[in-house]
């Protein structure tokens, strides 16, 4: 089969512009959902560790359910089906968001026009799905980190005269965070990769734009290769950070 490689097309005109749009959208969606999922993950983790049983059960059900169903199904659920369970006021609010920002506006030196605007329903749905999915994993990572610190550390800190919260604040968390941070960074990496799934509901991220370029300009191989290289660069930077972190900050804790 004959295939003409046309790399020049990728780096000029429409395809380059679309790819850049996609890159910006990918960064936006992953940054927003990373911050949100950190917050939600910590909340879920705290719920799991409180002595109040129903909260524990809720947290357990949350993590187990969202870790054991595919992200694609969750995205479809949030986009197609969640309006049945979400109160009508929130539904209306989400649908009206599009009209809050009429006309193009610029951010990060980049013009957002029409459907490329930051606050549309698709992007928010994508953020919700990614946040919920990732926070389940983050909650588990944090819990595993805290549980890897032996319990007698807390007991010893109580015996020294620290209160429960002080024990966590000064003894457990400083040690646990050191263990937790590398897995958290790799969760962030997973989040960037998972954000490519949001294309199925029409979020204009890099994957969506690659498919778009493929169908408009008939250069599939080039488009997907460029997208792959960008994703690869992002993830190599992140894994380089993990390695540097492990080299410089990882202190072997002796028990």
């Amino acid at each position: 089969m004959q295939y003409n490689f046309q790399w020049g097309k990728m780096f000029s005109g429409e395809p380059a512009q679309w790819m850049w749009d996609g890159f910006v959208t990918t960064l936006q969606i992953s940054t927003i959902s990373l911050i949100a999922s950190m917050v939600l993950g910590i909340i879920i983790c705290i719920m799991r560790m409180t002595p109040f049983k129903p909260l524990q059960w809720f947290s357990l059900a949350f993590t187990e359910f969202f870790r054991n169903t595919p992200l694609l199904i969750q995205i479809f659920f949030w986009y197609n089906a969640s309006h049945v369970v979400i109160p009508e006021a929130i539904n209306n609010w989400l649908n009206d968001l599009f009209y809050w920002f009429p006309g193009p506006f610029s951010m990060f030196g980049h013009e957002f026009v029409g459907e490329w605007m930051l606050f549309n329903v698709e992007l928010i749905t994508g953020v919700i799905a990614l946040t919920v999915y990732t926070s389940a994993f983050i909650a588990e990572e944090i819990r595993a980190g805290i549980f890897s610190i032996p319990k007698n550390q807390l007991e010893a800190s109580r015996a020294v005269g620290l209160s429960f919260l002080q024990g966590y604040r000064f003894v457990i968390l400083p040690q646990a965070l050191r263990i937790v941070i590398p897995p958290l960074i790799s969760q962030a990496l997973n989040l960037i990769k998972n954000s490519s799934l949001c294309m199925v509901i029409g979020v204009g991220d890099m994957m969506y734009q690659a498919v778009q370029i493929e169908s408009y300009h008939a250069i599939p191989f080039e488009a997907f290769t460029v997208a792959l290289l960008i994703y690869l660069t992002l993830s190599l930077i992140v894994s380089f950070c993990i390695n540097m972190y492990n080299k410089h900050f990882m202190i072997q804790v002796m028990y």
Partner: protein
Amino acid sequence: MHWDIVIDNFDYFLYGNTSIDWVFPFIHRPEGLFAAIILAVLGIFGAFWIGLAAGLMRLSKRMWLKYISVAYIEVIRGCPLLLLIFWFYYLAPVLTGQTMPEFTTTMFCFMIFTGAYVGEIVRAGVLALPKGQLEAARGSGLSQMQAMQFVILPQALRNMIPSFVNQFVSLTKDTSLASILGVIELTRTGVQVDNREMVASFEIWITIGGLYFLICFVLTSYSRRLEAQLSRYQARDR
């Protein structure tokens, strides 16, 4: 609520229009949940061998073998599966000279993708064994290959079983991506029924999420139990 639509289409979710007979591939056009399971099983089977090779190559002392494996693992782990599927879908005709069916494409992609992760598991499993095992095997006169084959791998692979099960779970979840390419597996049947009926989105997606959850949760619980069982018989450093 329209649960009757789900009940009517439940057999379609489970096996779609799969036909089974005595002509060679035996299973023709697998669809629905059945296709997802077939994809996952074939994928993990291929990924095991690829991953075993990649993991052992990464531990090799020959630099070129090691670098090939490191490059493979890092590249595959660094890019999203969806992108890999699309990329391979357009690459395969260029390589083979003929179009490749979607099912086969995704199957190869799952093998290649999961192979990288299994490679890391194999490497971790071999490194987790005490060093004395290899030294003792070499000391009793086995060659490096024999030591690997008869001493290290039988122990390491057994310890890796829980990780393999976890990898299988995440592969089962990943099979949902095949639907984007048009393979009619569980997610795709959901999209089809949802688009046809239009009123029962909530019920359909809850059902399909529940089906995935059932498989994955059972396997995850099983791997947790296995882990607890296996850790008792592990060789340890003194």
